[in-house]
């Protein structure tokens, strides 16, 4: 259960963003849905006002017409609040703002998503492939990727 002070902090952030952030039910986390344009502002507020200083993981999933990107946030060391943020981008315009300026740990994690899923992150300092060779064509984790040969 989320303690009161943290819940207050979250509510304040939701209010200050004019309800552009939608909470949703998740059995294990405080779930927040946001549009790509508001992602960076939400991250900044969560870090400054709610003490969420640790971005554990960024995952991208191929949902046919859209890509869904999921961020899991925690606070080190008190670890009271657990937040998951979801955002979606259309398949033919897969671009998100990079959160590198807020959480430097997104450096290689965003590169991996660019490499394997093909989502671009604007503002990333070095958006190149990280796991596959530079000359590799295609993005393998997409559902429509077919291995040739």
């Amino acid at each position: 259960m989320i303690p009161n002070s943290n819940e207050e902090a979250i509510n304040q952030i939701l209010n200050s963003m004019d309800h552009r952030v939608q909470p949703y039910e998740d059995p294990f986390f405080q779930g927040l849905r946001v549009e790509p344009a508001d992602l960076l502002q939400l991250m900044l507020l969560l870090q400054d006002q709610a003490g969420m200083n640790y971005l554990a993981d960024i995952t991208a999933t191929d949902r046919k017409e859209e890509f869904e990107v999921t961020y899991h946030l925690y606070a080190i060391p008190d670890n009271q609040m657990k937040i998951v943020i979801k955002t979606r981008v259309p398949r033919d315009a897969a671009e998100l703002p990079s959160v590198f300026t807020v959480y430097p740990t997104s450096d290689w994690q965003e590169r991996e998503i660019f490499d394997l899923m093909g989502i671009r992150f604007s503002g990333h300092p070095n958006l190149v492939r990280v796991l596959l060779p530079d000359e590799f064509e295609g993005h393998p984790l997409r559902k429509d990727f077919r291995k040739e040969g």
Partner: protein
Amino acid sequence: MSGLLRTEPYIINIGPQHPSTHGGMHVEAVMDGEEIVDVIVHLGYVHRSVEKIAESRTYTQFIPYAARLDYMATNLPAWGYAAAAEKLLGLTVPERAQYIRVIMGELSRIASHMMFVGSLAIDLAATTGLLYCLRDRERIMDMFEMTSGQRLLASYMRIGGVSHDLPEEFFPAINSFLADVPRMLEEYNGLIIGNEILQARCNGIGILPAETAIAYGVTGPNLRASGVDYDLRRDDPYGFYDRFDFKVAVAQKGDCMARLMVRLEEIEQSARIISQALEQMPEGDIIGKVPKVLKAEKDREVYHRIESAKGELGYYLLADGTDKPARLHVRAPSFVNLMVLPIISRGGKLQDIITNIATLDPVLGESDR
């Protein structure tokens, strides 16, 4: 540099075929004379497309792949995956199986840290250190072979429990191993840590400040060596860790020596946890009620994380109503930890890169997946 002399930075390549890169990693050291200006890390030499393969395997079939992620401490990633799948599928694990998982997981952690000490020794050209660590690690390999039939890559975990119960001959073996752990640590302290050359090469080298560590997502012993008291076994407990009394090893300086000392302390604490688990373990089933075909409802997702030997190992699982996951993502601690290699190496000497890589303890199998 003298105004009369024109110099240029020079790039020295380390790897991917190199004895000290812990697998296949290519590190470019940009040097200005003796000093490192920048370090560029290239990964992907061990990329085995595990996440894509997971989409065409059932939940149980993925367990051997999870074991092959962090092969130094195989039971820990396999346990993490099994626990994530159990969370997704809503299964419970019997008590005896949980205790067995703790014992196997902590043995894997000890094996990983012993290999860390040995590989640090051999990276600094102290070959004997590796032989001592390998000898002690062989006893753990024997115990894995007794229980699961495999020395190194034991697919011992199952969704819902473990595959076999502990055999009779396991208990004398593990009791004699636990009794010998203090002697082993004393030997490492004397032979390896007490060595002047190793101390000169590790003290004050590769300092990682705490805020940088948290900002870059560094977890595990590397984070604790920088003074941050954060261990998932105590702070976000899973698998009955809240029933054990153990100390979380924290050091303050954040240099290579601190990272080494934290892991040695963790070997001792893991041995303590195993003794307590052996005492508390009840009789009972080793696997819970698991349906024949494992399916979860569409769009159900979990993110489960454990304290692996390298740091926070997380599994993101998304179900689509079939018996195969729609998406599996592994949050690999080694991948994230390696991000700070350039930061801690800048301003040092070329040989410090080797020490820094060794003390960050990356496992390329999980970092490249």
